[in-house]
């Protein structure tokens, strides 16, 4: 047991310490490495009035909306990737089932907002949105003039979450985290935030990180807590660890369509378990169904 060592905490303690009612929270991962483990703990702890920032809100957002955690969503594509709709999200917008403010961009706009926050800049310039209705729908999309060419560019404001939660393949106890496969905006979302929680499949010795430093995406010096949560991104993917639980993504279309079924799901798999290990105990056979094949690459020489 390494809890307590360095910055390693239980998910319960990390969420209790770093995610507060009313916070702006980013849970990133571009359909890959999504920290369902953290989202479920936030639901269990009954957080309210959160602003959730995510390019692709995905099932994780639908569950948090249904559980009443979210009052505002900052996003660029809200769907069940490859499998359908987010019906709790749609009911909130279409039927005003519950209050939900939205702050909507394209993917590039969201990435640019995180990039500005990460860089310590107040805005980010991009060539985008000409002749679209997005700037009319969202006054946060403005323009800026190039002082050299006179070109007018779009501009989006920095997005600086109070806390960003990223799932990584591995981290040391100080939060030096290595990620491979699809990188999404994990780095930018982490640097943009005031506080960072790294959730990792493996907690490894610092020497593993130091052996391949170009693989490190998030340095421990910006990390506040490290949580060890194997299969913590289930039902999403983690390259080199497990595949997506696609049956569940497909099933979500029917679960989320029906308010009662959705509540039953949350009661059984989220609120009805104490932690991730109880959640995993309710999902026997994951390893057999989803564990990744071995496609280990060769290393490179860091000698001099």
């Amino acid at each position: 047991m390494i809890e307590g060592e360095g910055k390693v905490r239980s998910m319960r303690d990390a969420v209790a310490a770093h995610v507060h009612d009313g916070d702006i929270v980013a849970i990133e991962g571009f359909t890959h490495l999504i920290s369902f483990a953290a989202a479920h703990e936030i639901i269990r702890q009954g957080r309210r009035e959160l602003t959730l920032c995510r390019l692709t809100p995905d099932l994780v957002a639908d569950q948090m909306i249904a559980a009443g955690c979210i009052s505002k969503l900052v996003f660029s594509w809200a769907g069940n990737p490859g499998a359908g709709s987010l019906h709790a999200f749609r009911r909130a917008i279409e039927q005003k089932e519950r209050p939900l403010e939205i702050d909507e961009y394209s993917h590039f706009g969201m990435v640019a907002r995180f990039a500005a926050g990460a860089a310590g800049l107040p805005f980010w310039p991009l060539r985008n949105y000409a002749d679209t209705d997005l700037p009319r729908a969202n006054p946060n999309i403005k323009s800026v003039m190039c002082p050299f060419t006179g070109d007018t560019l779009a501009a989006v404001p920095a997005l600086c979450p109070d806390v960003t939660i990223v799932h990584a393949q591995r981290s040391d106890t100080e939060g030096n985290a290595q990620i491979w496969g699809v990188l999404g905006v994990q780095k930018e979302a982490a640097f943009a935030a005031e506080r960072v929680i790294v959730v990792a499949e493996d907690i490894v010795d610092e020497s593993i990180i130091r052996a391949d430093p170009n693989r490190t995406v998030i340095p421990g010096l910006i990390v506040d807590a490290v949580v060890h949560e194997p299969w913590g991104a289930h039902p999403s993917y983690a390259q080199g660890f497990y595949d997506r639980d696609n049956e569940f993504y497909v099933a979500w279309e029917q679960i989320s369509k029906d308010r009662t079924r959705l509540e039953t799901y949350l009661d059984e798999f989220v609120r009805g378990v104490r932690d991730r290990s109880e959640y995993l105990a309710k999902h026997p056979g994951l390893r057999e169904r989803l564990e990744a094949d071995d496609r280990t690459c060769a290393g490179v020489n860091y000698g001099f």
Partner: protein
Amino acid sequence: MVCVAASELRDGDVVFVGIGLPSLACNLARATHAPNLQLIYESGTIGTRPTRIPLSIGDPALVTGTLMVAPMIDVFQLLLQRGHIDVGFLGAAQIDRCANINTTVVGSYATPKVRLPGSGGASEIAAHAKRILAVTTLDKRAFPAKVDFVTTPGRRVSRVITDKCIFDRDDASGELLLSALFPGVTVDAVRAQVGWDLKTLAIVQTVAPPPPDQLVALARLRNQ
């Protein structure tokens, strides 16, 4: 529709690929007439040769064996905005007379009848890919005279591929014109599914049926 979309791609093109039909069309082209097609997925994989139909845009199957994985900021800045993408595919819930595309809302933005997923990367694909193809099934609700919300402007769309016909955008008028029909489909049948007074090109072609090798390759891809 997949076969027509695949046929649009030229060998050596750098194509920005989304999940679903575009991914299938691109891999079909790569398996047949365009072996040097360079597939770039929005999640940052470059030179991708997926060994299965990807479940989502971040599917690790896109990464395994690809040439490069770029962070998303590089996908949008260094590849799209810098002008390295030859062809971009767009899906659409609605396309109108001027090829404006809506994937945001049906109804008003504040109180929509149907809330759609939103732009995703469509806005920047439309702004920066050199050639833009839209793909959607032909259906009266999907082809109104004017979309409820302009997620991506029609200005840079060159062609719309449906399951019944092909529309080309006329640069002079900015309108979509009927340019080709699938075998057995009539101009009137298309007009019945389109919410404006559709004009046609002087000569409306008939889409050739897919060659057998394309169909064989498609079946193989679907069974991966």
